[in-house]
Structures are given as C-alpha cells and as structure tokens.
C-alpha cells in the first residue's frame, strides 16, 4: 500500500466512471472555490477601509449578475445530475449474463453463497470478468454492503432482499466494509472481495472449504425434507392440494379475491413464511406457515430451487412495467422491502433484543 493514498483502487468499469464523474466535480468545485477565494482576497485588499468613517458605495445593479450566477450553477448541476442518474440506473440493472450469488448479513459477519453452493464467511472469491449479481438479506439489523474498489454500496435490510451487481476487472483483494452502523462490532464486520483469474477461481472452488452443494440442490432436498412435494406435486395428474410450482417464478399469479402478483423472490418468500398472505386463485388457504422452521439461508436455497424449475421468458432489460402489473397491490416490489414477515432473526448470544 502506498503510504499516502488519495484514490482507492478501481476494480470495475463502473468505478472508472465514478472516478471520472468525481474528477469532473472536483474540477468544477476547485474552480468555484478558487474563484470565491480570489475574489474575496482581491476585494478585501482593494476595498479595505482607508479611514474610520468611510462607508461603502451602494449601487443597485441590474439583475443580470444574479441571473448569471444562478443560471450557471443550475446548468452545471443539471448536467451532473443527468450523468449521475444515468450511472445510477445502470448500477440498478444487472446485465443478462449476471451470475447469481447470495449474501446473508448478521451481527457481525457476512455469509456468502456461491452458485455451486460453496459457502464462505466474510470473504467472497470471484473470478475476474464475470458479472456478479448479489442478492442480500439481513438476519437482524440494517447492514450495508460496501466495496470502495467497486465504488458501490447497498444497504442490506432485514425482511427484504436488496441487490447489487458488478463485474470485477482487476485481480486483487479489496476491502468489504459494513457501511451502515449495526452495533458494537460494526467496525469488525469487514471482509474482503478476492478477485481471481478464472483458473484460480476454479481451483479455489475445487478445494472449496464447505460441502459443495449448489443452492438448487440444497433447496431440492429441503423441498423433500419439508414435505413441500406432498401438496405442490410437480408432475401432472396428481391430486394436488396446492398450485404447481413448475415455472412459477417470474410469472403473473392470479390471486384469490382478485388481482395478481408477479412471483418474484419477495412473493415466494412471503408465501413460505406467511402462506395465507396472497393465496393463488382457486386454492384453499390451508398451507401451514414455515416461519421459524427455515432460516434465511434455507429460504435462499428454496427460492433458488423454485427459480430453477423453469422460469418466465426473460423480460427486456430495464423493462418498465406499468404499475398495475408489476407492483403487487401492497406497493412492495423487487427492489424494495417485502411485505412478508421474515422469520424471527436468530440473535447472537450476548446481544439479545433488549426490548424489555
């Protein structure tokens, strides 16, 4: 490390753009700060009080000066606003080739899960050049996933999924910080993102620390062990008591009592934890709740399994759906927090809720 660092490393394309934008702002700011400073010094010296009774000359000038110095900053800010907003939208829409990783945050650690089921804590190994889509949730309080080298940050909320995507383009080890204050050990909820060459990553996965079962496989097992299949039989011709889950993900699901909802992660999660919340049209609300029986990580596996069962045709990138179709009547949405009740967070010993 350099002894006097000014800029953090850039490890994604987006980081380069943020630096560019910041550089532009820096230039603008420097210009205006110097302008003001120089004017002040010059006026101070030039118009200093020469004798004690001197008064200033008051002349009302036309409004043109004020118009100029409101309009110029306004235009600069509008330009920077559009630039910033464009990048923000890009940062919120994962490219189609993104590979899904999962993260669960809790006081005070990060738990990651790779697509093949490898799990790690506080470190995330990634291959260079791969687009990563990270879906995150928290088991307790709000945390924030921040990687300065990616110029990226996203809060991780309890009871909701939030997501980030990035495509590392430089091999290296980068800081991962929890950026949202989360309790006593907040400053130790740090880790690293290790970006490796594709070969190194493959080798690392091969020698992976934990039993390599993909979330889909784990989810399939859970589907069996929780006996979900007894009601949601996948095959045709079975006297099912619940709707088939084949290809349900990403589809519009008609609801009992009118309306419909897109079966996204939030809806699937809600339906597992609070089955009666939005019952599919034509079925009875007989499903028991799995609240407290499945952990956040198991939920992630179950949802991954359901997603693997065929999915809706991909919607276009950045498709803006009319509000009536895509947002559930409760106003929640994929990026937002969910209407569901999450399972009771497992509370680490020693920092139990002190609500009494």
């Amino acid at each position, binding site marked *: 490390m350099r002894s006097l660092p000014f800029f953090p490393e850039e490890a994604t394309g987006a980081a380069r753009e943020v630096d560019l934008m910041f550089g532009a702002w820096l230039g603008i700011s420097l210009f205006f700060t110097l302008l003001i400073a120089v004017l002040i010094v010059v006026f101070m010296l030039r118009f200093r009080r020469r004798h004690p009774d001197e008064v200033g000359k008051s002349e009302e000038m036309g409004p043109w000066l004020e118009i100029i110095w409101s309009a110029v900053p306004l235009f600069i800010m509008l330009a920077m606003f559009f630039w910033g907003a464009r990048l923000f939208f890009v940062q919120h829409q994962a490219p189609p080739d993104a590979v899904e990783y999962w993260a669960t945050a809790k006081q005070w650690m990060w738990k990651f899960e790779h697509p093949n089921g490898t799990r790690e804590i506080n470190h995330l190994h990634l291959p260079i050049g791969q687009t990563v889509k990270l879906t995150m949730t928290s088991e307790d309080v709000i945390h924030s996933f921040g990687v300065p080298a990616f110029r990226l940050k996203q809060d991780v909320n309890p009871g909701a999924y939030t997501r980030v995507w990035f495509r590392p383009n430089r091999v290296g080890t980068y800081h991962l910080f929890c950026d949202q204050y989360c309790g006593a050990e907040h400053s130790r909820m740090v880790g690293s993102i290790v970006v490796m060459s594709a070969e190194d990553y493959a080798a690392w996965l091969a020698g992976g620390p934990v039993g390599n079962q993909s979330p889909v496989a784990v989810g399939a097992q859970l589907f069996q062990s929780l006996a979900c299949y007894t009601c949601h039989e996948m095959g045709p011709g079975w006297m099912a008591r619940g709707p088939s889950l084949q290809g349900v993900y990403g589809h519009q699901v008609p609801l*009992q*009592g009118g309306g419909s909802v897109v079966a996204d992660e939030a809806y699937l999660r809600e339906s597992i934890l*609070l089955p*009666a*919340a*939005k*019952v599919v049209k034509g079925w009875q*609300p007989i499903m028991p709740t799995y609240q407290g029986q499945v952990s956040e990580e198991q939920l992630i596996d179950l949802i991954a399994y359901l997603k693997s069962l065929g999915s809706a045709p991909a919607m276009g990138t950045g498709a803006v759906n009319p509000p009536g179709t895509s947002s559930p*009547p*409760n*106003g*929640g949405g994929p990026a937002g927090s969910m*209407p569901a*009740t999450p399972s009771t967070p497992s509370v680490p010993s020693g920092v139990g809720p002190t609500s009494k």
Partner: protein
Amino acid sequence: MLSGSVSASADTGGHGHARLQHHFDDLDQQREASTFGMWVFLCTEILFFGGLFTTYVVYRQRFHGVFAQASRDLNVVWGGTNTAVLICSSLTMALAIWSAQINRRKLIVTFLLITMAFGLTFLGIKTIEYKEKFDHHLVPGPHFHYVCPPGEPCHPEQAEVFFSLYFAMTGLHALHMIVGVGLLSYLLFPSWQGRYTSDWHNPLECIGLYWHFVDIVWIFLFPLLYLIGAH
C-alpha cells in the same frame, strides 16, 4: 389597525387595560398575536399527528386486506358514538365562546362544563374500548393473540401492526383529550369570575381552537380505523 372592529379596542385598547401585557402596544395586537400563535401551534400539531398518519397510510397500502379485517374487531358503535360526542362537544365549545361574546359569564361556565362532560364521556368510552381490546388479547406485545376470522387470509403479524397503529393513534389523541379537559378546567374559574368578556376572551378562544383541532383528528381517525372493514 383592525377594521370594522366593534370590540372595545377604542376605549380599553390603550395601555390601560388590565389584560394588556407590557410588551404589546394594545389589546388588538395582543389578541392577534396569541390567536396567530395558537394557529401556528396547531400547524405543528398537524404534522405531529402527521407522522402517525403517514405510517398508517404506508401500512394500509401494504396490508390492505388485513387492515380491513382487523378493523372489524373495533367496535363501530362505540367509535360512532364517540364521534358524535366529540362533534357535540365542539358545538358546546363554540357556544362557550359565543357566550363570552355576549357577556354571559354563567353561560360560559355552563357550556364549558358540558364540553368537559362530553370530553370525559369520550375518554370513558375510550377506556371501555381499550378494556375490551385488553380482554381479547388485542394489545400488541407478548400477549397479543389475534384470532383470524374463519375462511379468510390469516396474518396475525399484520393485524398486530394495525393494532399498534390503533393504540398509537388513539392513544395520542386521547392524551390530547386529557390535556384539553385539563385546559378547560383551567378556564372555569376565570370564567366564573367574569374575566372573559366581549372585549377579551382570548384564552377561551385559543383553547377552543385546540379543542376543535382534537375533534378534527378524530374525524379522520374514525373512518381510517373503524370503518375500513365495515362492509
């Protein structure tokens, strides 16, 4: 200055009036200042309750059905009665001020007492309602136990949010009622003494504004809490 004023500002508006505080020029200035001050205070009250109303609106959108369902556990008859009681109390409050305008001090006291009686009736009914909720384990917390109506979606958690809001909103409102009754009782003695006349009855007017405001809050609480599940 004040146009069309038939009040006594002409003869008592100078520095001679007993109610005039030293830093005001005249009684009209003092009256305007305090009425305006009261309105500004009510503005803050709007936003004070506003925080709760915003919370309500957000969750009402989110848990639309459950809120309607849970609302059926509130007693519409008691709620409606309380609405009527508050409206009548607003009437008597307005009449108390009217009595001051026509210089009838005993009438002021009478109307104030009636207003207070209405206020206490409201609080009594509220207590009965709270007691019912308590008996049915509908008070949020560890003993909360919501029995879903048969054959309907069941979300005790979301119902708990509804009852949390119910208690927060009506509780804050009831607190304002208690303060209001206290303020009215503070007015009784000076009214009896005949301090409030057509010249000057500003405390009466300001506290009246407060009372009407509390009424308005209830006018919104009633449909939002009691009526959303009535059909």
